[in-house]
């Protein structure tokens, strides 16, 4: 879709008009065009990755304005102004997405929703929480924990990302195997459409009253509107939590173990398989599995015992609770913290660039083994390293979380290698029947692969929806391949 924005000679004039209207609508304290704000909102995690999308280090595209609304009505006002003047709007919450979803490619307005920070209602009888979507994940979780509840959405980015981002990118937390992705936790939401109109979906457990419009906005990454409020289901903090580690001889056996566990009807909160390379880093040979089991005491005891039977049946070694407890209590965020010797964050050799990416996907149990093997061949064939774990499970399959790492001489070849490994990895996922992304989102980086995921007709249908809802194409243009 082409974006309509004032021509350069009119732009300065329009910018002043827009600025004045935004200040009038929100108040000067909620609108910024300072250089510092425009710089910091030009970056997200894709930049930290040193992703060589383009050569050298050019200035990143900057927004013209940053707005800090605090209510749904204020978001609506911003979008109406943007529509009037055909100015792009990029909603941002945590700004931690790794695919460039929140980069303001065409300037315009970055709409920082973190000012929408109210917890509106915690209903401990009906097990729901209603909150504005600008809350960072941990802010909501801490408030729920204080009253003995949890929302069970605990991704590695819990301290970084916000509700709006979680929902917009269809994210998954580390205990999604038992509690579902964020999509399964949403009952209803309030959304500001690209026209500025405000709609709400009902906050009910389920319905047959037409299509579920929640799913129109979840995963749309801000291209179809701004989610400003959400009702999520919550549960009491678990009475009992048990841990178990296991070691399998190889990846196919470990994945078979996961399959049998899910098939048995067991629902571990967390079940994480490290591939052979990751297991080696833990000082073992084979494939390690760590499990966490939540629930009331009898349930966790039952699930623990049944899980142990399956491990034994497959010739696996019971490692006791230590590896799993240690992972949960001490290590689950460790990889995200930079250190000088961290494979992602260390300083590369002079003239080199260190790059990485997570080509995550999901598919059947069979798919996982084939996809891992195929991706390993691709990555290692390009002189890169692949580390993988498998961490979100379903009765019909699971998710692969493979990270490639490389250090290459800076320049056009690094750009080519980066794009090629992504392309080949995604094409492999698609060819084997998997989705091109499980929970990190599409953003900018993967937009060009959406035709694979949806098919030509499917992508055209998505574009039709986009054109109908956002005729001026103001909402997060350039993303999701739209």
């Amino acid at each position: 879709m082409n974006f309509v924005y004032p021509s350069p000679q009119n732009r300065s004039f329009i910018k002043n008009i827009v600025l004045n209207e935004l200040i009038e609508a929100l108040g000067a304290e909620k609108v910024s065009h300072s250089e510092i704000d425009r710089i910091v909102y030009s970056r997200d995690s894709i930049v930290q990755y040193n992703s060589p999308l383009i050569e050298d280090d050019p200035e990143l595209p900057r927004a013209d304005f940053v707005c800090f609304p605090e209510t749904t009505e204020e978001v609506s006002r911003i979008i109406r102004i943007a529509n009037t003047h055909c100015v792009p709007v990029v909603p941002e919450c945590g700004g931690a997405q790794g695919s460039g979803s929140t980069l303001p490619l065409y300037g315009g307005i970055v709409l920082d929703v973190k000012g929408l920070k109210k917890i509106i209602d915690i209903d401990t009888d009906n097990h729901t929480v209603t909150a504005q979507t600008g809350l960072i994940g941990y802010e909501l979780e801490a408030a729920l924990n204080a009253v003995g509840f949890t929302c069970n959405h605990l991704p590695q980015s819990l301290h970084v990302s916000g509700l709006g981002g979680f929902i917009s990118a269809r994210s998954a937390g580390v205990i999604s195997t038992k509690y579902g992705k964020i999509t399964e936790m949403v009952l209803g939401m309030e959304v500001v459409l690209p026209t500025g109109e405000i709609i709400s979906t009902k906050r009910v457990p389920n319905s047959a009253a037409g299509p579920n419009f929640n799913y129109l906005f979840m995963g749309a990454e801000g291209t179809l509107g701004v989610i400003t409020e959400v009702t999520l289901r919550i549960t009491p903090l678990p009475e009992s939590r048990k841990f178990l580690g296991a070691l399998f001889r190889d990846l196919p056996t470990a994945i078979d173990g996961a399959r049998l566990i899910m098939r048995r009807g067991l629902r571990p909160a967390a079940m994480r398989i490290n591939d052979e390379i990751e297991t080696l880093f833990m000082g073992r040979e084979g494939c390690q599995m760590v499990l966490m089991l939540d629930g009331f005491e009898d349930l966790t005891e039952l699930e623990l015992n049944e899980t142990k039977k399956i491990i034994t049946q497959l010739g696996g070694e019971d490692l006791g609770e230590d590896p799993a407890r240690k992972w949960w209590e001490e290590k689950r965020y460790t990889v995200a913290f930079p250190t000088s010797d961290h494979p992602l964050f260390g300083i590369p050799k002079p003239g080199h660039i260190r790059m990485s990416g997570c080509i995550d996907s999901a598919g059947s149990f069979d798919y996982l083994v084939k996809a891992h093997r195929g991706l390993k061949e691709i990555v290692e064939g390009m002189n890169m390293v692949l580390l993988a774990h498998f961490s979100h499970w379903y009765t019909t399959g699971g998710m692969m979380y493979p990270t490639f790492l490389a250090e290459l001489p800076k320049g056009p070849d690094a750009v080519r290698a980066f794009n090629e490994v992504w392309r080949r990895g995604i094409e492999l996922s698609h060819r084997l029947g998997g989705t091109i992304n499980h929970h990190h989102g599409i953003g900018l980086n993967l937009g060009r692969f959406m035709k694979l995921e949806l098919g030509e007709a499917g992508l055209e249908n998505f574009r039709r929806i986009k054109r109908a809802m956002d005729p001026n194409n103001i909402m997060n243009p350039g993303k999701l391949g739209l």
Partner: protein
Amino acid sequence: MTDIVEMTRLCSVCYKMCRDVCSVAGATRHEADSPHNRAFIAYEVMHGKRELTPEIVDYFYRCSLCKACREACEPGHDAGEVLFAARKDLDDNLLPETLRSVKEKISSPKPYGEESEAIRKLIGTVKPDGDAPLLLFGQKMRAGSADGIDQIGRVLSLMKKLGASFSAFEDEPATGQLPYFLGFTGAGKKRAEELAEQMRSAKVKSVVPLSADDFRMLKVGYPALGIETGSIELISLPEYLLSLIVKKKPRFNNDGNIAVTYHDSCGLGREGRIFEQPREILRMIPGVNLTEMALTKDQAPCCGYGVGLSFTHPEITKAMANRLAELGKNTGAAIMVTGCPTCRDTILENIDDRSTVPEILDIILFLDRMIP
């Protein structure tokens, strides 16, 4: 220990893992206020990609140095230390106007002005006894607080109830915390030397600063400046009060159940690791039901005083104070007890509506009320 340049780089490439506990970012909700982004701008300045301008310096001062970022970071990187280094001894023409206009006052021995004669007289009634600890009332209580004379009166009252013998300086020098943490190292050092000398001359054996940031200055700032305090023992206010209560075993006059929450002051908590002692005190009082806020201890947000943030960015202080009060309100507690009188003052001076939040008392005022 990672050097400051590398630490700046590492903070600037992080996924912002500490952003949710940053006291300023949590209050302003601005992406620019996350420690990661401040480190990114600092890194660009360090490497000549960005000029150090008054706008950028003003931005560096939007940090309360609460160190929540350091405690949230598994490898212990300290974005606050990066900002502290960025502020040190800058030219006056780079300073934010709000700071430039008060620099001289903040750097003086009396940053809040001279205390009143009535306060001096009141403190002059203290009769030290032998090796009694020195209480440092702090410049804010002595001259910068709306009800300073009442606060000092309550200190004296509580000490009497607890049978405590202590000494006080009728003319108390500033610890130097304000100029030091605001980057005026020379002035901070001068003030620190003055107080250290006065304590040595008075043969002080132990010192109890009532203000958490004075405690922090003595604990962290003095060693960093090379200020010798010899064998003077530094005791935090909660530790001191707990020792008195354990010894005296006072009767408490609380009739019914009262829900109380506790705010961990940055200087006591994150810097002094004083978390349990004030809670132990509260639990000793019959009928007091301690209910914790959602963010406590290492995650407790700063009240907004921010060792000088209230001078450079009073609007941020206001947002922070209101946020903290809101967290207190969410507990349903009737009273929020702070470990530090300055925290109490800062919250009360800045909250929008006192009637909607718990009553805010510092630990001295609370105990004076609870002990007949």
